[in-house]
């Protein structure tokens, strides 16, 4: 290659930042000329923590994820507060909002996603696609300004600040949507003392992640945590009122059945949509995200890549077999995006001869969803709709799908394990944190479950030492750790005449190390004497 490889990263969120971080070795050697275009003016932050930030459980500094100074020091160009407006794929040139343009050999699109705004009377909505949006992509992300006062999504820091202020003011908060983010906010806000109502149209919360039994278990837990849950309610409109100062504010959410749910702040938590306008405008295939193949390259242009929430990965159809776009959606979770970023950076480093080529990017399995909350433990992944006695017509030559479950609604516990060949394909675990963490690990590692699945449930039981009962006095139980002396040996010593702890120590060395067991030696002696006393009459 003659000059350095010119790479332009568009989007400087967590995923774009990861790509930049892992490419810096190539930048330092001068083999890669890296430009980063980020629309926001400040360092990127970890969006996963946004609900916690909204309830003041964490602070801005702790969320920072990028180090543009390091990237700049390595030789990268970092353009913050600048948007990419269009991609000219013929000229290999990107037009920027500051009027300039940059040439590229490779583009990495990491434009992420924006919060969905549902159709509600009274709330303006913006078309995500189409010429208008593409020519003014920046407008799509300025929805806040057009939102009625008292209505917000939860995606960025400004949204979180609005919510934080509302909680501090003791406002009633209505959350539309019962997905993970909405529930995390609801629980955190309730804990922070907020009055929270969650409105959703399904029968139970987290319907994309849970089965019905799990959903009902969660709904009860939410209620117990002080969150009002309004199910089976399709929101249709908002009612606003005009204050004395002439300001129009949110007053209530109106549902299809006529019900009105009043509050001071409406949070729209209805999922996210990939930011694809730039790609669509450049005539790249776009479905639920920018369509890329297994090497993360656009189906239509091998020099354009997409990673993270803006991308949907699907095998390219064979030549001449049409171009039916994939129906799948981006994962919406950070893990897959990071893996893609690392892999893509690794591939480019390898191409530049700076590293060994990484192994093929493994197809993402469904990602584990964990509700971040203090008092409710919910972990779910995969398709968990099947029930224990269901048939598995799809099995074919594979082992049959198997379901094991444990339900204890009274105590808010529910576990469903969906396995094939002993390996988890899906799971729900509610109210059992240790079981949940173990199942998570087993799923992530594709490890085989024990044949006796109930072993896993016992992790949330009492400590085995307490279960085995009275073990402290068993013959085999070690009393003196320092000298490995068992209760049985102490009793034997008592039988041979030791009457005091000191005499036991002399005979067995028990108690002659750290001395921490002297009390227990006394207990064993006492127990022995009690048994002796009982034994005497019989003798």
């Amino acid at each position, binding site marked *: 290659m003659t000059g350095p490889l010119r790479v332009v990263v568009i989007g400087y969120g*967590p995923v774009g930042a990861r790509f930049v971080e892992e490419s810096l070795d190539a930048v330092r050697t001068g083999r890669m000329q890296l430009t980063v275009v980020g629309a926001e003016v400040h360092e990127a*932050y*970890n969006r*996963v*923590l946004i609900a*916690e930030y909204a309830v003041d*459980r*964490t*602070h801005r*500094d*702790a*969320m*920072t*994820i*990028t*180090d543009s100074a390091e990237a700049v020091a390595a030789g990268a160009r970092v353009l913050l507060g600048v948007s990419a407006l269009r991609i000219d794929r013929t000229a290999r040139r990107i037009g920027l909002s500051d009027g300039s343009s940059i040439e590229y050999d490779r583009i990495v699109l990491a434009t992420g996603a924006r919060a969905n705004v549902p159709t509600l009377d009274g709330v303006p909505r913006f078309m995500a696609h189409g010429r208008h949006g593409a020519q003014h992509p920046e407008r799509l992300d300025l929805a806040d300004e057009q939102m009625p006062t008292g209505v917000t999504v939860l995606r960025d820091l400004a949204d979180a600040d609005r919510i934080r202020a509302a909680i501090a003011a003791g406002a009633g908060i209505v959350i539309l949507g019962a997905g993970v983010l909405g529930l995390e906010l609801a629980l955190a806000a309730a804990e922070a003392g907020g009055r929270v109502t969650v409105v959703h149209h399904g029968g139970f919360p987290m319907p994309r992640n849970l089965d019905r039994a799990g959903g009902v278990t969660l709904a009860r837990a939410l209620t117990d945590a002080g969150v009002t849950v309004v199910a089976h309610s399709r929101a249709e409109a908002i009612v606003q009122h005009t204050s004395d100062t002439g300001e129009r504010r949110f007053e209530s959410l109106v549902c299809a059945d006529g019900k009105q749910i009043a509050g001071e702040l409406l949070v729209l938590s209805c999922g996210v949509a990939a930011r694809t306008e730039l790609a669509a405008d450049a005539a790249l295939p776009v479905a639920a995200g920018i369509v890329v193949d297994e090497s993360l390259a656009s189906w239509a242009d091998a020099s354009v890549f997409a990673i993270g929430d803006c991308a949907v990965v699907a095998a390219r159809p064979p030549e001449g077999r049409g171009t039916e776009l994939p129906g799948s959606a981006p994962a919406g979770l*950070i*893990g897959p995006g*990071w893996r893609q970023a690392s892999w893509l950076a690794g591939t480019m480093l390898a191409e530049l001869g700076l590293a060994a080529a990484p192994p093929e990017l493994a197809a993402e399995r469904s990602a*584990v969803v*964990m509700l*971040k909350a*203090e008092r409710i*433990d919910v972990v779910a992944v995969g398709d968990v709709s099947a029930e224990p006695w269901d048939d598995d017509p799809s099995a074919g030559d594979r082992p049959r799908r198997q379901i094991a479950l444990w339900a204890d609604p009274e105590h808010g516990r529910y576990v469903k394990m969906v396995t094939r060949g002993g*390996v988890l394909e899906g799971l729900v675990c509610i109210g059992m*944190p*240790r079981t*949940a*963490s*173990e199942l*998570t*690990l087993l799923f*992530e*590692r*594709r*490890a*085989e479950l*024990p*044949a*006796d699945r109930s*072993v896993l449930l016992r992790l949330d039981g009492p*400590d*085995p*030492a*307490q279960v085995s009962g009275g073990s402290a006095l068993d013959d085999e139980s*070690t009393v003196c*750790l*320092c*000298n*490995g002396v068992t209760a049985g040996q102490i009793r034997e010593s008592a039988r041979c005449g030791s009457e005091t702890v000191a005499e036991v120590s002399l005979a067995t*060395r028990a108690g*002659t*190390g*750290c*001395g*921490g067991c002297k009390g227990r030696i006394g207990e064993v002696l006492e127990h022995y004497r009690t048994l002796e006393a009982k034994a005497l009459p019989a003798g």
Partner: protein
Amino acid sequence: MPGTLAVATHCPYCALQCAMSVSVDGETGVATVAGRDFPTNRGGLCKKGWTAAELLRSPDRIPAPLLRQGDGSFEEVTWSTALDLVAERLRALRSEYGADAVGVFGGGGLTNEKAYQLGKFARIALGTSRIDYNGRFCMSSAAAAGNRAFGIDRGLPFPLTDLDDAETILLLGSNVAETMPPLLSHLAGARAAGGLIVVDPRRTATARQCEDGAGMHVQPAPGTDLALLLGLIHVVIAEGLADAEYVAERTSGFTALARSVSTWWPERSQAATGVPARDIRLLARRLASGGRTFILTGRGVEQHVDGTDTATAAINLALILGLPGRRGSGYGTLTGQGNGQGGREHGQKCDQLPGYRKITDPAARAHVAAVWGVSPESLPLAGLPAVELLASMGQPGGIRALLVHGSNVVVSAPNRSSVVQGLGLLDLLVVCDFFFSETAEHADVILPVTQWTEEEGTMTSLEGRVIRRRIATAAPEGARSELWILRELARRLDAPGVYSDDPREVFDELARASAGGPADYSGIDYELLDSGAEVYWPYPVGSTGTPRLFRNGFAHPDARARIVAVSSRGPVIPGPGQLTLITGRLLEQYQSGNQTRRIAELNDARPEAIAELHPATAGDLGITTGDLVSITNERGEVRVRARLSADIRRDTVFLPFHYADEQSANILTRDATDPISGMPEFKNALVTIRPAARAEVPA
């Protein structure tokens, strides 16, 4: 007792160095030990300590120098024959292959004097850079992390008794209840405060100390400690629990740390470790609750390819909580071997000169060369860390001779078969030991040395306190001190410099050589030590020592501790049918077992290695307690009996590493090493287990 004389000394085994008195019956000549009051052990001893005198009357003592014969047997020879032969072979190999063809392998059980003299002997008598020691397998990761963060590495930078008043102690990867049980008395305060937190994939005897409201046992998957620590640091920073004033005044690097852990929220940590997110939050809050808090690491978290980074993460956690250098709080690593502390300070390490000086530092070279009476240019540069040193045996450009002191690498080094193979390729293997170790079996020459109560010297315990080892019994006629052996070899090699065989003289020279270095012993002499003074290094001339480091700053030019952001790549993950093997120690055995396996009372309690695995795992494999099992991977096979216990994670199997031959856990361990410290990956090997067919049961 009439006719007995009690000598005040310390236990021959671990770094706690329990004080004991050794009495020898005037009539029978039989030595007995008793605990002696001392701040660390308070008069107590563990089973190993109580039975230590048995070592002195073991029939297995090597009676005289042994020379391997053509038929493989060993023949007793005189000392002069043996030493002449060794010196002549060393000369010949050096002239044929160069000075670096001779390697030296030391040990963390050697006295300060021997460790020092061995380093000097290697550098100026042999002229080789190829010296390292078994402490590489113990303390190197924590040492590297401590040096990087604090500018100095003293295992506990405070007296052990400081732990007594702790309200919270986070113990990461250490089973002190078995490895140094008298230490438990120092955990009593934290237990009473409900604040003993033990992180271990096994519910060990130490983890059980957390039961009944005394604290919390955290049971992550092996090799995921770093991810756990990153999660804890995340919570501390995210929830604003860091000690901002301390961080601002006493550290550097916080911003990069905060950025690096912003991606480690507790649920992500949970997915990597198997530790519930809520436990991670609770734990972080407890650590940050403002009480007297200590964070301690052990080999469980350090013996990994990311061991230095894991210890660094533990230090980072301590630093953002404002613990190091604050009275009643701190970070420390629990040194393992008897002189694991002193042994890593005075020149056994491949990159180091006495006083914990860097061998690459021109000023350090000049100072030490002056003490040794040689030119700085004549000192070799840095050599190879232990695993690389052993891997170079018999290889082109590698070592062709090896002198082994106080170490049993056949049992203690990772990937046993490659070590054994390497030993076989050597032209000369000289082993100094008092017992016929598994390594000695491969030797060309075995030189019997004095032990414990047969020698004077000093040790530096896990708290950085220099203590005296004293003669209580006469050495067997055939045994010699290593100081004498090194003197005799140096003389035969016409080496420059002085090699005294008087420990006191050697110590005085060590003190001079260490002057001005991080581990400065220059103000210490035997008289001071014998006065009963509490002597903690650094102890420069004119000072009264340093019981507590970091009170007024850290050992970097700007006095600030370095917070070094580290990242986790995660461990190798077991595939279908595989388990993760972890290794560790038992109460009744010590290190390679070369001593303890010869003591009936200890060995009868633990006569064989037993694999511990979870009943559910065992059930699925068709294994029950007492079954002989075969544990295999690409490096070899271990055959031991199984014991089922719900105390271990289902994905993990535990083997003690004290045993030899087909029970040797290190047949299976990997010799991959930490890129910074050279520490091998002892605590994470993938294995498969199956019942060994009955027909295969050895008679």
